[in-house]
C-alpha cells in the first residue's frame, strides 16, 4: 500500500519535471485550454446568475396582470373594471397601473416610464435609473425633460437615482407622479395601462385567472409564473446562441488537443520506449501520462473557472454584455450575486477535461503498447 502511494508520487514527480522540460509547449496548451474554460464558465455563470436575478426581481411582482385587449391588441383599461370584476376570493389587493415607454432620441434609448404613487412625488419630480443618469450625465437636483404626446416639453427635477444594487431591471426606469404621467402621454383620467392583482395562495392563481376571463371577456390575464418561464426561455435562447458559437471553439480545441497528442513527437515516442525498456510497464507509462493530462487540464479548469468567476461577479461580465443583454441600450452596470451550481460545474468539467484526457491518452496508449525494442535502433 505504502509502495503504491510512493509509486504514484514518483510518477507525479516525473510528470512535473516532464512538464517543466517542455515549458513552452505546455504553457501554450495551458493558455488555450484555460481560455476555453474561461469562456464557457463565464457564459454559464453569467446566464445562470442573470436568471436567478430576474427570478428574484419577479418574486416581488404581482401574481396576475390583467390587460384589456381591443382587436387583439393591448389597450387601456377603464378604471371601472376594478369594480366590474367583483370580489374574488383569494385576491388580497388589486389596483390599476400606469406605465409605458419613452424614446429619447438624444441618447437613442428607450426609457420605461412608470407611475409610483408610493414615493410621494410631486408633479414636477421624477426618480430615474442609474443608466439614464449616466447616459445623460445628470444627477440629483438636475432637470430632465420629456417631449409630451402633444409636442410640449415637460421638465422634471430628479429627486432620486435608483439604488444601483437593483440596476439590472431599473437601469432605464423613470418613476413619476400620476399627473405627470397623464400629462406626458395623454392617457385620460379613468384609464390605466393594466390592472395588477395580488394573490396570496399560488394554487388559486389559475382559478382566479379563469374567473377574470369570464367576467371580463375582453381582458387577458398574464400570470407571473408564465413571465418567469418566458424569461427563462429568453435567457436559454441567448445562452444557446453563444453555445453554438462556442461549440465551434470547443471543436477546434479538441482537434488541437488531438493533433497535439497524436502528433506525439518522435522524441516523446522515444521517451516512452526508453521508459518501457528500462522497466516501466505500459500501465506506468499510461499513469504518468494520465497525471500529465490531469495536471494540465485541472489547472486549466481551475484557472479558467476562477477567472470566469471574477469576470462575471466582479468584472460585471464585461466581455459578454453586448451579446447576452443585447436588447437594452442603456447597459446596466451591476454586480450579480455570486452563485455556483454544482451540476453546472460538473457539466463544464465533463465537457472540457474529459475530451482532453481521452484525446491525449489514446495515441499515448497506442505508442506505449508497441514493443520497446524500437529504442535499440
Amino acid at each position, binding site marked *: 500500500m*505504502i*509502495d*503504491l*502511494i*510512493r*509509486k*504514484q508520487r*514518483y*510518477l507525479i514527480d*516525473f510528470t512535473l*519535471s516532464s512538464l517543466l*522540460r*517542455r515549458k513552452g509547449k505546455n504553457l501554450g496548451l495551458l493558455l488555450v485550454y484555460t481560455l476555453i474554460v474561461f469562456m464557457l464558465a463565464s457564459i454559464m455563470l453569467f446566464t445562470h446568475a442573470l436568471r436567478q436575478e430576474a427570478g428574484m426581481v419577479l418574486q416581488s411582482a404581482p401574481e396576475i396582470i390583467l390587460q384589456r385587449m381591443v382587436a387583439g391588441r393591448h389597450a387601456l383599461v377603464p378604471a371601472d373594471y376594478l369594480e366590474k370584476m367583483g370580489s374574488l376570493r383569494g385576491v388580497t389587493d388589486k389596483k390599476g397601473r400606469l406605465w409605458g415607454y419613452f424614446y429619447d432620441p438624444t441618447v437613442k434609448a428607450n426609457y420605461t416610464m412608470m407611475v409610483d404613487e408610493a414615493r410621494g412625488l410631486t408633479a414636477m419630480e421624477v426618480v430615474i435609473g442609474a443608466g439614464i443618469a449616466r447616459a445623460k450625465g445628470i444627477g440629483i437636483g438636475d432637470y430632465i425633460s420629456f417631449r409630451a404626446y402633444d409636442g410640449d416639453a415637460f421638465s422634471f427635477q430628479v429627486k432620486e437615482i435608483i439604488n444601483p444594487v437593483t440596476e439590472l431591471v431599473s437601469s432605464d426606469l423613470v418613476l413619476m407622479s400620476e399627473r405627470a404621467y397623464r400629462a406626458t402621454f395623454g392617457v385620460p383620467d379613468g384609464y390605466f395601462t393594466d390592472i395588477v392583482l395580488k394573490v396570496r395562495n399560488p394554487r388559486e392563481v389559475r382559478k382566479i385567472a379563469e374567473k377574470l376571463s369570464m367576467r371580463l371577456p375582453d381582458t387577458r390575464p398574464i400570470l407571473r409564473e408564465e413571465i418567469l418561464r418566458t424569461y427563462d426561455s429568453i435567457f436559454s435562447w441567448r445562452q444557446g446562441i453563444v453555445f453554438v458559437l462556442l461549440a465551434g471553439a470547443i471543436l477546434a480545441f479538441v482537434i488541437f488537443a488531438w493533433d497535439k497528442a497524436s502528433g506525439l513527437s518522435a*522524441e516523446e515516442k*522515444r*521517451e516512452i520506449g*526508453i*521508459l*518501457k*525498456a*528500462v*522497466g*516501466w*510497464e*505500459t*500501465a*506506468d507509462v499510461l499513469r504518468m501520462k494520465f497525471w500529465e493530462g490531469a495536471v494540465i487540464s485541472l489547472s486549466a479548469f481551475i484557472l479558467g473557472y476562477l477567472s470566469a468567476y471574477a469576470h462575471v461577479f466582479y468584472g460585471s461580465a464585461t466581455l459578454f454584455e453586448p451579446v447576452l443583454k443585447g436588447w437594452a441600450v442603456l447597459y446596466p452596470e451591476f454586480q450579480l450575486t455570486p452563485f455556483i451550481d454544482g451540476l453546472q460545474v460538473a457539466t463544464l468539467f465533463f465537457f472540457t477535461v474529459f475530451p482532453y484526457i481521452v484525446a491525449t491518452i489514446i495515441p499515448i496508449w497506442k505508442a506505449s503498447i508497441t*514493443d*520497446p*525494442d524500437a*529504442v*535499440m*535502433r
Partner: protein
Amino acid sequence: MLIELTDIKKAFNQGKPNEFWAIRGVSLRIEQHKVTCLKGSSGSGKTTLLSMIGCLSRPTSGRITLGERRLSGLPERFLTDIRRHTFGFIFQKFNLIQGMSVLENVMLPAYPLGLNYTRLTKDAYRLLDHFNLTSKAENPVEWLSGGEAQRVAICRALINDPEMLIADEPTANLDTRLSEEFMGLIDELRRSGKTVLITSHDPVVFDSPVVDRVIEMCDGLLVER
C-alpha cells in the same frame, strides 16, 4: 541464471509483402557470470536477438527459458517484471532522457517500484560515486560528454541491481581510449558477479581479454566454428 534459446526465429512484417526474417533459427546457451559477445556485421540480426533475450520483444517462434522459467507465452506484465529485475540495458545511443538531471535518469528504472526515496537516492549516489559522476548528479544530461553519458547509462542499468547486463554496440559512439575504459568497467562488473551480454562489431570489444566467449552471427544465423 542460465539463459537458453531453442530454435528462435523472428520475422518482421509477417504476412505482408515486405516480410523479413531477421533471425532464422538460433539455438544458444548463455552462461552465468561470464561476458558473452555477439559479433557480426551490421544487419546480421544482433540487436534483434538481443532484444528478444532482454524481453523487449518476442520471438515469432522458438523457445527462450530463463533459469526454470519459459518466457514465451508470458503476458506483458510478467515480461516487464522479469526485465526490470533481471536485465539492465545499455543502449548504443545511451538513450538518456533529455532535460532531466543525471540523478533522475539513473533513478528512473526504480520509479515504478515505489521504493523509499532516501534509500533510492542513496543507492543512486553510491553508483554515481563509483563511476566518478557525483559532481554531475544535478546536471542535465545534455551537458555530459560521450564517456560520461555512457557511464550514466551504466549506472541506470545497475540501479535495480540486475543479474544480467545487456549492452547493444556500447562502444559505437566512443573513441578507442573510452572503449577500452568501458571494457575495464565490464571486467569489474563481471568480477562482481554479473552476467554480461554485449553485441559489437568493434574489435576493441570482441578481441578484449575481458570477453569470455564470442558468438558470431551472419544473416540471422549463428556462424558455427
